[in-house]
């Protein structure tokens, strides 16, 4: 993987902050976009845009082609069996809510258990909490081992043997720099007949993700975390499950026959779950982003990001009073840390003045961060365009912050 060549393709790298080069280490929140994705979207709007599906004219055909070919790209990326298993949503959050409102409301009843983990992002926590409260179900959590080094797999097995209706878990959390053993977890769940939902917001587009090999039943991801635009993401579900699910949103395109006085007849997946005008432009952009990522190679991207995260954490550990959450060895590009006597908010502000974009706060994982004893922490997250020199800068700026604030 040739990083200089990759960096040339990302226009944002031309930005300066107070005459410092911009160092973007907020990739876990959202990633930057390569020129070809930006240009694909402009071109699409200039000569291929119209509403999809319903039109019998040139632009509508072009738009439909782009939209449906993006669906194929997503299906290919995660190894879905059929592209009709890919439902476009606004992102991971909407995908979780979709499943909660359809599969969830249908199958989860009073007294049932939903199993989550303690390391979920709010997106894969709050929808299930809401459902549980509404129907009178219980939530249980697979606990983390100390300092968030891993899930407690023994307790996971025990909790799964109690047959919850659903096991929803994050593949790669946005905080701990680890990857959960998805395949093993899904095998345990499948042995008990438990449906599995995997939040793959931080893994798809960052590493190889193969739903067949992992064996989950649902997966959710967001384009904006993988060089694609905001406003689009996907839910993947096994067609057997999708086939039994009621619609989520109601409107045009998802209906076959509508009447004034009789129940409507709805279409099958994916149309059934894509009411109204979908994110068309966004699909065109996401398709291009996926082609880009696959050309670079997902394994290359993963090992590059994890190598930088490992380098960063090794060197961060040398800073006195700096504490890193999660395991010793990074499996993803994410490093979350706290610094004694220096508040994360100040760190981020101080870093930004020097061109460095870090994230500060609870990272949309309040319960986890509270359990880890750090309601506010800092996070550096690496992706394909980051460099070792940027790790150097990170360390230098943090050292400076320590002597400034302590």
């Amino acid at each position, binding site marked *: 993987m040739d990083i200089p060549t990759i960096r040339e393709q990302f226009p944002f790298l031309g930005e300066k902050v107070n005459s410092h080069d911009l160092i973007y280490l907020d990739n876990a929140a959202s990633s930057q976009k390569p020129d070809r994705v930006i240009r694909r979207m402009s071109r699409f709007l200039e000569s291929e845009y119209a509403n999809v599906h319903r039109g019998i004219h040139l632009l509508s055909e072009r738009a439909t082609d782009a939209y449906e070919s993006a669906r194929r790209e997503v299906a290919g990326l995660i190894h879905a069996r059929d592209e009709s298993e890919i439902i476009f949503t606004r992102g991971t959050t909407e995908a979780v809510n979709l499943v909660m409102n359809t599969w969830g409301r249908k199958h989860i009843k009073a007294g049932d258990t939903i199993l989550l983990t303690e390391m979920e992002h709010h997106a894969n926590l709050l929808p299930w909490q809401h459902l549980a409260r509404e129907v009178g179900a219980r939530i249980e959590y697979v606990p983390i081992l100390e300092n968030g080094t891993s899930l407690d797999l023994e307790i996971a097995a025990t909790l799964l043997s109690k047959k919850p209706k659903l096991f929803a878990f994050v593949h790669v959390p946005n905080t701990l720099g680890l990857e959960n053993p998805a395949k093993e977890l899904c095998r345990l769940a499948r042995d008990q007949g438990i449906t599995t939902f995997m939040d793959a917001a931080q893994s798809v587009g960052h590493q190889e993700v193969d739903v067949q090999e992992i064996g989950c039943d649902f997966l959710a991801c967001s384009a904006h975390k993988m060089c694609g635009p905001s406003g689009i993401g996907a839910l993947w579900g096994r067609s057997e499950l999708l086939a039994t699910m009621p619609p989520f949103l109601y409107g045009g395109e998802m209906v076959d026959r509508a009447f004034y006085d009789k129940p409507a007849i709805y279409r099958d997946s994916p149309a059934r779950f894509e009411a109204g005008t979908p994110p068309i432009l966004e699909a065109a952009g996401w398709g291009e982003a996926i082609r880009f990522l696959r050309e670079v190679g997902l394994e290359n991207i993963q090992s590059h990001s994890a190598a930088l995260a490992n380098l960063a954490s090794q060197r961060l550990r040398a800073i006195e009073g700096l504490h890193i959450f999660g395991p010793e060895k990074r499996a993803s590009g994410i490093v979350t840390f706290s610094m004694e006597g220096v*508040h994360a*908010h100040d760190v981020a502000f*101080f870093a930004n003045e020097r061109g460095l974009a870090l994230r500060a706060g609870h990272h949309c994982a*309040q319960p986890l961060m509270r359990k880890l004893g750090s309601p*506010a922490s800092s996070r550096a997250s690496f992706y394909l365009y980051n460099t070792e020199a940027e790790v150097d800068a990170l360390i230098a700026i943090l050292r400076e912050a320590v002597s400034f604030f302590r």
Partner: protein
Amino acid sequence: MDKNELYQEVLLQYSKRPKNFGPMECATHAADGHNALCGDEISLALKIENGSLSDARFTGSACAICTASASLMTGEVKGLSCDAVKKLAHDFREMARTGSGDGLPPRIQVLDRIHLFPQRVKCAVLPWETLLSAMEHEVGGK
């Protein structure tokens, strides 16, 4: 000093060695404040007697701006009538938005540049908002 520098020396002093930091016994009023976006969390405890604040202390984990602001605030409001405190809180919020701190005690005016940093205004204002909230919340049992 650079007008665009947020962290002034005096401000840093207040955050490194905050005044009135720590728990209070026999508080009459209290409230928690937090800023979900960045993780500031402070708890404020007051002693209100005959319509005046006789004591104010805070605890929590907050950024330098928030800590300095809480430190300055608790120093300033002691001995004031509740009405005077409300007026001060109002004036402070005005200064945080616009930079104009006329009528505020000079010490507090070290925060008069905060309006240049819109994303930090919340940090400076949080202690004052928590103070107003605490004045409405009597500690149970009293």
